[in-house]
């Protein structure tokens, strides 16, 4: 079993960093899709099965919060596991995001932080490819 992942960030460098970190995470990876804004992300979700999305907030065209709203409103994607990876520091905005059933990682992050959060959310044990008993039902 492997996880298909979508990385949504307007920075190509950040998408590359996240992708590389995922490959080192021990997570059994399937396809890694990339999108540079919310509109592109919705197109990817329309055409592909995705298990986990890592989403930036400040993006042109369609920001991450709007993307998450669209995802949660669509019966096909409403249960998608989402981690917000952002510079956002406002407690008010972070609390609002957490109400949308997402995890949050603050930039800058260490590769270990990203790995731990992804492994926690997917139920994969840190540094291994073993899926634990309380995993998400992908």
């Amino acid at each position, binding site marked *: 079993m492997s996880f298909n992942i979508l990385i949504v960030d*307007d*920075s*190509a*460098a*950040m998408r*590359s*960093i996240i992708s*590389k970190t995922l490959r080192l995470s021990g997570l059994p990876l399937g396809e890694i899709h990339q999108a540079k804004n919310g509109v592109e992300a919705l197109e990817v979700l329309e055409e592909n099965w995705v298990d986990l999305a890592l989403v930036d907030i*400040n993006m*042109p065209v369609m920001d991450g919060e709007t993307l998450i709203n669209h995802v949660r409103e669509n019966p096909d994607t409403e249960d998608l596991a989402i981690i917000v990876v*952002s*510079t*956002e*520091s*406002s*407690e*008010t*905005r972070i609390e609002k995001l957490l109400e949308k059933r997402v995890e949050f990682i603050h*930039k*800058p*992050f*260490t590769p270990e932080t990203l790995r731990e959060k992804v492994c926690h959310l997917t139920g994969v044990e840190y540094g291994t490819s073993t899926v634990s008993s309380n995993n998400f039902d992908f």
Partner: protein
Amino acid sequence: MEQALYQATILTFEELGFMFPVPDMDVLGLDPKTSSAISIDFKGDFDGRLVLQVESSMMPTIAENMLGEEMPVEEEMQRDALGEIANVICGNALSMIAGKKAVFKLGAPQFMTEIEETEDPKAVAHFNLEEGRAEVLLYTRGKQ
């Protein structure tokens, strides 16, 4: 405000770029001819702009460190990497200055071909790194 620039810059370079800036007491600005700069406009509790300027010779190293690449990184990706550093510095510095309740919207990083500002920055932080020098300038409008 200056303290926030120092803290946010050190944290960001260390965690994203695996580089270790040391505050530089030499207040002379960088030479625009041999520097690269990225600006981030922001709006929120107060508006303004953050500028990250580095010696151009540092650009390849910053990108290579961030991306974990041993091969040369193309110029566009180098700019993108510097933009992400500036973005993260800006987000963190604003939160340190205005507090955790404050809400800011950050614009996309803009690579500056000409470094000219008509007004003086509200705060400046200078750094020495093994790879060269860097500085962060914060311009603000409105009430802080």
